C-alpha cells in the first residue's frame, strides 16, 4: 500500500442557506480545495461524492461546474458517515495504486431537503421508528442510562455544549457564533428529556472537499502534505451483543483498528474532531475512542483536558453542536479541520504544536444495530 497525503482542503460556509443549493455549496468546497492544492481541475482523476437527501448524480452536477467531467465518479450514502465513506474510497484507490489524484466531497442542503425543519426520520418500516424512536430519543435514552450507571449529571452534558459553542466562536465557518452558559443550555426548550435544544446540533447546509495523492508526489502541490496514517470504515454490530447502550462496541473497535493501522495510540493524539450531534454523546465517544477509561468521560470533560489549551482538545472547530451538521458533509469536514490544525492554519482555534489528529464521524440509527456506520481517520503532520 502506498502512503497517501491530504494535499487540498476546501469547505463552504456552514449555516441555514436555503438560497444556495447543493451544487453551489459543493462547487465552493471543490474550488477552494483545488486552489488550496495549486491544482488544475484536469489533474483530478476520480471522485467519491456523498449526499443523503434527494440524491441523484450529485457528484457530476457539482464537478461539471468546475470543468471536471468524463471520469470515474462514485456517489455514496452512509448516513452521517457518508463523508467518511467517500474519503475511504479515495484513500484506498490511491493507496492501492489505482489512481494518483482523487477528490472526496460531502455535501448536504438540509434546509431544501424533504426533511427541512423536521427531525431526521428513521428508515421507513423501522420497527423502533414506528414505535416513537427519534434521534433525540435515542440519545436521551443513552444519556439517562449514563447518568444511572456513572452518576453523570445534566450539568456535565450542558458543559459539552458550553465548550463547543465557545470553540465555535473562534471559527469563522461555524453556524453558531455565540457563547452560552450552562444555565442557558439547560433552560433552552426541552426536546427529549434530558436533552434540551442547545444540546442538539442544528440542521445545516454545507459542503467540504478533500484532495489526496500519493505522499511521494505530494510536494508538487503543497509544502504541507498531511499523511493519512489510518482510514477505517466499519458497519454496526447487533445491539443484542451490546452490554450497555452508552458504549458503542463498533465505535470502540473502529478506533482500535485505526490506532493499530497508524501504529499510534490515543495518548499520541493532539487534537480530535468527533460526532457530537447531541451534547451527551461527546462524553460517550471519549470513552469509545480511548481518550479515557470507560465511565470516566464526564471526569475527562470536568478536568478541562478536552478544551482548547487542554491536554487533548476535542472539537476545537465547535463540533456539530456549533458548526452545524450537514449530514454527508460532516465526515469530510472533520478531516478538513484536522488537516488545518496539523498545518498550523487554524488561527484563533489552533491547538499549539498539533502533529497528530483523529477525525471521527458516525451515524445511522437502525433497530437492532449499535450504529449504522463509523468512519475514523488518523492524520499526521
Amino acid at each position: 500500500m502506498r502512503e497517501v497525503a491530504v494535499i487540498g482542503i476546501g469547505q463552504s460556509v456552514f449555516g441555514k442557506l436555503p438560497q444556495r443549493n447543493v451544487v453551489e455549496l459543493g462547487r465552493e468546497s471543490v474550488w477552494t480545495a483545488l486552489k488550496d492544492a495549486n491544482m488544475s481541475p484536469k489533474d483530478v482523476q476520480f471522485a467519491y461524492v456523498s449526499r443523503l437527501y434527494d440524491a441523484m448524480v450529485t457528484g457530476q452536477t457539482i464537478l461539471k461546474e468546475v470543468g471536471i467531467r468524463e471520469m470515474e465518479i462514485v456517489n455514496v450514502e452512509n448516513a452521517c458517515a457518508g463523508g467518511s465513506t467517500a474519503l475511504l474510497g479515495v484513500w484506498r484507490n490511491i493507496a492501492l495504486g489505482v489512481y494518483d489524484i482523487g477528490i472526496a466531497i460531502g455535501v448536504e442542503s438540509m434546509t431544501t431537503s424533504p426533511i427541512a425543519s423536521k427531525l431526521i426520520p428513521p428508515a421507513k418500516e423501522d420497527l423502533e421508528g414506528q414505535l416513537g424512536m427519534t434521534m433525540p430519543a435515542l440519545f436521551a435514552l443513552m444519556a439517562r442510562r449514563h447518568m444511572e450507571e456513572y452518576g453523570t449529571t445534566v450539568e456535565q452534558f450542558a458543559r459539552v455544549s458550553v465548550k463547543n459553542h465557545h470553540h465555535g466562536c473562534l471559527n469563522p465557518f461555524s453556524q453558531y457564533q455565540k457563547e452560552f452558559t450552562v444555565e442557558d443550555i439547560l433552560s433552552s426548550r426541552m426536546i427529549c428529556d434530558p436533552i434540551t435544544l442547545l444540546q442538539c446540533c442544528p440542521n445545516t447546509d454545507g459542503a467540504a472537499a478533500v484532495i489526496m495523492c500519493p505522499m511521494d508526489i505530494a510536494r508538487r502541490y503543497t509544502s504541507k502534505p498531511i499523511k493519512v496514517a489510518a482510514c477505517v470504515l466499519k458497519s454496526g454490530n447487533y445491539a443484542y451483543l451490546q452490554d450497555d447502550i452508552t458504549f458503542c462496541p463498533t465505535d470502540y473497535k473502529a478506533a482500535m483498528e485505526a490506532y493499530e493501522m497508524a501504529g499510534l495510540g490515543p495518548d499520541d493524539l493532539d487534537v480530535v474532531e468527533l460526532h457530537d450531534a447531541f451534547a451527551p454523546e461527546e462524553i460517550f465517544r471519549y470513552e469509545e475512542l480511548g481518550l479515557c477509561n470507560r465511565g470516566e468521560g464526564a471526569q475527562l470533560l470536568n478536568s478541562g483536558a478536552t478544551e482548547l489549551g487542554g491536554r487533548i482538545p476535542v472539537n476545537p472547530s465547535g463540533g456539530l453542536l456549533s458548526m452545524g451538521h450537514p449530514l454527508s458533509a460532516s465526515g469530510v469536514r472533520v478531516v478538513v479541520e484536522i488537516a488545518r490544525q496539523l498545518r498550523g492554519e487554524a488561527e484563533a482555534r489552533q491547538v499549539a504544536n498539533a502533529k497528530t489528529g483523529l477525525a471521527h464521524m458516525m451515524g445511522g440509527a437502525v433497530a437492532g444495530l449499535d450504529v449504522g456506520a463509523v468512519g475514523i481517520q488518523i492524520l499526521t503532520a
Partner: protein
Amino acid sequence: MAERVPIREGTFIESAKGGILLANRCKSCGQTFFPKSSICFNCFSEDMEEMELSRIGKLYSFATAYMPSVHFQPPYTVGMVEMPEGMRVFGPLKIQEGERERLRVGMEMEVIIEKLWEEGETEVIGYKFKPVIS
C-alpha cells in the same frame, strides 16, 4: 367496528393474562431474539423455536419527547425494558397523569397491548409498557 391490525405480525399476542411479546431462540446455540429472527445471527442456524417472554421486565432507560415522531404527538414517553430472558425491548410507555415524574430506572414494567394509532378506519395495535402498580 374498526379493523385492528398489528404493527408487525408475530411480535406479540393478547392472552387472558395480558400482553405477551413473542421472541425466538436458536435451538443450536441458545441465543434469543426479539423481534424474532429467521436465522440465528450468532451461529447462522435455521433451527429456531418461538418463545413467549415474561410479562414483566425492568425499566432500563426512558425519555420523554417534546417533538413529534412518525406516529406520536408530544409529549410522549418511550423506554427500554430489560426482560428476564435477557433482551432489552424498546417501546412507548403508558403513563398515567402524574406518573412521569415517578419513573425510575430499575422499576417493574408490564407489557400491555393497545392501539398505537389510527389509519383511516384501521387501528394499528402494538405493545407498550406500563409501570406495575404495587
